[in-house]
């Protein structure tokens, strides 16, 4: 159940170091320049050291920054297992844009836990949500730098956000290191093409 208390509630899930905070910052700044109220919450501290990370962005909302359980309009998942970990925040039939390329936690590489099949995650999610899953790592590489994975994902979710594409592009220009603007804009475009009907 989504509500009219917020124009668009987005959950961003990923792994520390993938650039989830940057994505939420770009969306947040873009929304402010569109004159919207914005609330956002991020994971800090220990989770930055490769831990599980979840951020919330609420566009057109003047309440708290935490999205009530099962009510987000959409999810941006930078990593498949992390999509599954926080999917309970998303409303049924919400849009889930997901990178299907995994990052194995130390618990998996050291043999304490097993990592589920990413395709199985997609299949499960498709039962209740609108899922767009693709290999964003490959697209980031195609853009010229694997670190632009977060911007590829931003491009992919951008078709669903109530913010004009030009505003997001302008924010990317202003917020990434000057030398990397072209790579990031290419990454954004490649991501956007994956979800543009």
């Amino acid at each position, binding site marked *: 159940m989504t509500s009219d208390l917020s124009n668009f509630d987005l959950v961003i899930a990923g792994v520390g170091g993938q650039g989830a905070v940057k994505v939420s910052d770009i969306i947040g700044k873009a929304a402010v320049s569109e004159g919207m109220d914005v609330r956002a919450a991020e994971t800090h501290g220990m989770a930055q050291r490769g831990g599980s990370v979840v951020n919330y962005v609420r566009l057109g909302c003047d309440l708290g920054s935490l999205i*009530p359980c*099962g009510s987000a309009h959409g999810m941006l998942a930078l990593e498949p297992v992390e999509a599954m970990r926080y999917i*309970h925040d998303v409303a049924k039939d919400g849009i889930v844009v997901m990178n299907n390329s995994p990052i194995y936690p130390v618990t998996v590489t050291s043999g304490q836990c097993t990592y589920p099949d990413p395709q199985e995650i997609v299949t499960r999610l498709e039962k209740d949500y609108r899922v767009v899953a693709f290999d964003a790592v490959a697209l980031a590489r195609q853009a010229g730098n694997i670190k632009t994975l977060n911007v590829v994902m931003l491009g992919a979710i951008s078709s669903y956000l109530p913010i004009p594409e030009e505003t997001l592009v302008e924010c990317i220009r202003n917020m990434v290191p000057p030398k990397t603007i072209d790579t990031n804009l290419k990454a954004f475009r490649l991501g956007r093409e994956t979800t543009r009907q």
Partner: protein
Amino acid sequence: MSGREYMLGNVAIARGIVEGAVDVVSGYPGTPSSEIVDTLASMKERDFYIEWSVNEKVAMEVASGASMAGARSVVTMKHVGLNVAADPLMTLAYMGVKGGMVIIVADDPSCHSSQNEQDTRRYSVFSQIPCLEPSTPQQAKDMIPYAFELSEKYEIPVIFRSTTRISHGKSDIELAPVSQKTGEIKFEKNPDRWVMVPKNARVRHPHLLSIQQDIRGELEVSGWNELSIEAESTVGIIACGTAAVYAKEALERLGITASFLKIGTYPIPEDSVRQLLAKTEQVIVIEELEPVIEDQCKVIARDVEFETEIFGKADGLLPRTGEFNVDICMEGIAKAFGIDSCECKPANQDMELPVRPPAMCAGCSHRGTFHVMKKVFGEDAVFPSDIGCYTLGIQHGTVDTTLCMGASISVASGIYDAGEKKPICCTIGDSTFFHTGINSLMNAIYNKSDITVLILDNRTTAMTGHQPNPGMGKTATREPTVEVAFDRLCSAMGAEFVEVVDPYDMAATEDVLERAKAYKGVSVVIAKRACVISAAREGIRYTPFMVDTDLCKGCRKCLKFGCPAIEFDEVSKKASINSMCSGCGLCIEICTFNAIMEVKK
């Protein structure tokens, strides 16, 4: 700068400090408070003094001194830091201040990155120092200039309680102009006021009590408390902080009309509470952590014989632990007022997921130090540790205790004093050592402990965001300053075994630790190597490493080393090194088959 900006709560607080025309800022890093000083210290132009102090007590004393001289001062810390600064705090309440002084304390409900979840409002009640509590990042910014004024008016410091969701929440923020500086900076001698010998303290205690009613009256009408009475409704909500915003959303989602009192000050607005109780039959008090307001509301209700039922934590409708959210508030409100909560059941996803704990970075020198430490001292040895990145060594079995900042050495001494016969090797970071580890080391040496103290000197305060400390030779604003030499400091305290080693050199580290273990008395080893994140930022690049799959036997020994850059391919049954490799080379020495080597260019 004016208009609207998208900001982190702590950045908004920093802006509020500037708008309030501050003169002196001090603090000790601690999540979720650190970005306040970081933001102010990184400003290109600044007309105030700023420092990272060695601990919260020192920071509080620096801010107090500034205030005695008439300056507006701010000190920042996290909730547990206030315990360290509790000694000056309690007397500062008696002594009072001259220039406005704001004590910013960030609480961490749910212990996102803390060792407990204590409630700073208890210190406000305890010390009788007023406390302000914002419910949004915008209010956090707006409250700071007011806090200075309140502090100056009553000549008492003001506590400002933030929580993780305020400090680390982001919001569009409406900026206000920066105030002009007015106060004259001049310390005036006044021993009756600034010297808390018993004779003077006895006078100041009744004074502190006497101003409480005035402060309460002032705060009652300050605008930080908002009362709205719904004539049609018999139910009411009293809420504070970020929980007040969740409660508002919960009411809207439940479709309930209720009278609402949002509290933003301590002492709480008693008249408003009375008005609300007079108009309602049932009230639920919604506050994170301790039932500070709930208890006081019950006292007020009893004193004036209101029959309103007051719900909250005492009856278990709301938890006394953890962070609140809209769902918790909806459930509590629905139960209190006997209505159906329209619970949004999330879709059932019962897949078993691997846990993803935070880990020491690829190339972190602590990993090598811990590996050698465990090898030399044996897995059964006792490893007391402390608070910082290296606490993540718990996953490697190298962190047996973590009490509070600076405690590792004193806990190690205590374990030795108790008669423990196993070897004891404690670890402490550089910033933590300066914080309160120095006292503990001095104590251990003086009282003849037989322990090894391993100072993990990664040249920064890494965990909270790389703040400088006295070992780095840089101030908060990155100006060069003296660099404290750990080895000479430890020697000066009487340690006779003091050695510095590079933890990337595992053979040398092993040799030093063997000798330290054999030494009778306190042996100090300083493992010195810059944090990999700082090194990368400074442009230091190493050649990454790779696994020769012909030589790899799939023994998984390297995987047990716990480096995020080492993976295992289940198909080929061989190890591999991923793009996270920072080239520390520590894994070469782990591999018994010489299968790990530098990537050839």
